[in-house]
């Protein structure tokens, strides 16, 4: 089972003007009883990008998606899809959606599901007949389209869910945890599918808590916690903003640490070998050991400056490695640190 990633021609006249955001929310708020699920959520997703929407369980990700689709009404604020009010029929024509639980009418066959959704999306009989085998092949279900969905594995059900989401060639695809039931090969294939959708100019809004997935495929991302966007931007910016520099030197003393602190925050000092001579505030190695000083840097370009500082003070520089933090680390810091 594998995905067919050949690009498909877009239906004429359906593409959104490039200047209109694919998704735009302003001050979106949702309150259930006394619980506020979304707090003034403001978000812009540009057309043609793959946008990751991250957050822990209960952060408000699925509620946001449901508001965008008109399944849930916002208490306050505004949401637009391709410039149209979210939830309007015209907006929904432009959207494909894979729900989080990917539950479909299991008495239907895979092809029957696409037929039903194609009718609702307004595709002609001719279009439906032509597209059903194409899309089934594209999601790696060739030969299984006539089997009932109740006979599908979880992964196959998720694939047919992806098929119904892209069946009518939407401008925007909202994918809510699209790889949660897939094995590593299936996940890889879905990532490739998402990239191929981007190549076709389709905007993908990827709602996920699988951070590695987002890191691998998204252009931009927003991290949401307790109903608020705590950080958003291009993936490089999100990760780069909290880069580290690991400086490995022969020894360290207070003078050097004070000099390094002028360039960056010192996160940790780690002695790699035994044989330390007791020396008050100064820690000096007796043998061939080394000390690793971890610095938090906003701009990795300061590395030469750090090297110069070390050597000017007569220290031997064994290594200078910029370390980019993973999205998971950034996410954990933001969510656990309670920036939201």
């Amino acid at each position, binding site marked *: 089972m594998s995905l067919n990633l050949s690009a498909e021609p877009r239906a004429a006249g359906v593409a959104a003007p490039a200047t209109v955001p694919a998704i735009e929310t302003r001050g979106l708020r949702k309150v259930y009883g006394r619980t506020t699920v979304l707090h003034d959520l403001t978000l812009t997703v540009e057309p043609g990008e793959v946008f990751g929407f991250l957050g822990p369980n209960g952060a408000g990700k699925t509620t946001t998606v449901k508001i965008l689709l008109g399944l849930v009404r916002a208490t306050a604020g505004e949401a637009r899809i391709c410039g149209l009010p979210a939830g309007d029929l015209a907006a929904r024509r432009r959207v494909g959606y894979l*729900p989080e639980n990917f539950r479909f009418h299991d*008495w239907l066959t895979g092809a029957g599901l696409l037929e*039903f959704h194609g009718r609702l999306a307004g595709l002609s009989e001719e279009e439906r007949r032509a597209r059903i085998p194409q899309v089934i092949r594209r999601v790696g279900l060739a030969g299984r389209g006539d089997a009932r969905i109740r006979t599908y594995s979880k992964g196959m059900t998720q694939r047919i869910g992806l098929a119904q989401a892209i069946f009518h060639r939407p401008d925007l695809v909202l994918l809510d945890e699209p790889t949660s039931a897939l094995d590593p090969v299936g996940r890889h294939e879905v990532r490739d599918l998402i990239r191929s959708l981007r190549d076709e100019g389709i905007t993908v809004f990827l709602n996920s808590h699988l951070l590695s997935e987002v890191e691998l495929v998204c252009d931009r991302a927003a991290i949401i916690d307790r109903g608020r966007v705590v950080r958003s931007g291009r993936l490089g910016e999100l990760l780069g903003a909290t880069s580290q520099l690991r400086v490995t030197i022969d020894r360290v003393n207070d003078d050097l640490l004070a000099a390094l602190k002028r360039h960056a925050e010192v996160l940790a000092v780690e002695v790699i070998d035994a044989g330390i001579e007791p020396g008050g505030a100064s820690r000096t190695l007796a043998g061939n050991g080394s000390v690793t000083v971890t610095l938090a840097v906003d701009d990795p370009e300061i590395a030469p400056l750090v090297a110069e500082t070390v050597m000017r003070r007569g220290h031997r520089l064994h290594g200078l490695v910029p370390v980019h933090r993973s999205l998971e680390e950034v996410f954990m810091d933001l969510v656990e640190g309670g920036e939201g």
Partner: protein
Amino acid sequence: MNTLTVARFTLQEAISRRLILAGAILSLAFLGLFVLGFALIYHNSSELSGPLSDEQSRAMFGTIMSVMGLYAINFLAGFLALFLSVGAISSEIDSGALHAVLARPLRRAEFILGRWLAYAGLIGLYVGLMAGSLLLAAWLISDYAVPDPVRATLLMMLAAIVLLTVSLFGSTVLSTLANGVVVFSLFGLAWLAGIIEVIGGALSNQAMLNIGTAVSLLVPSDAIWRGASYYVLSPLYLAGVSANHEGIAIVGHSPPATAMVIWSVLYPLTLLGAAVLTFGRRDL
């Protein structure tokens, strides 16, 4: 257009889940039993008819067997309506299957109307085929032709559609289990109130009559059945009831009041509108 797509989808579901096949088999079994029982009773009716003439005897047995058969069909149609629609919306919401569907350019009203249309069609077909077959069998066996089979059948369809709409409305605001409890209770309540009203009439007890009328307004299914049953009764039977002040408790001995018929038509339309409104405002 989308309404018809949803109606078609709902019918496909009924076929795929073998509801129609199971219903057809059981209906044939019911009709077979009815024909057998009616034929046996009718051919032994001379022992039961006493002083009645052949014509009187035929009308009496024809009336009783037809009305009892139709009563059973009315019950079955009521159950069918409730079972079909009790989770028509709620179970779809609970399972999450509705989310992908309503993310399409489909109005929620179209979904409700499509569901209702398909179920109403199925129930109408069921009542029409069953009542028609039963009355035909009664005519073939006893040569008894009911006075107005069309009105009787149409009213029976209306009774089942009233229950269908009550249940569909409940399905937009309650969970499937809660809705099941409520609608089956209402079904039973309407039946009981009908009996109380008939007994109240026989005893000329105004309080009992008022209870019956009030419940009939709340759930008119049993009142509609009584209206339908009137069109099955032979004039001879009705004359006997009028003379002796005795009759079958489950049938109506007077034609349905026009106001009740109008209410019974407005009732499902109003509830359907309410279902569209409540479902339209509900967060999914």
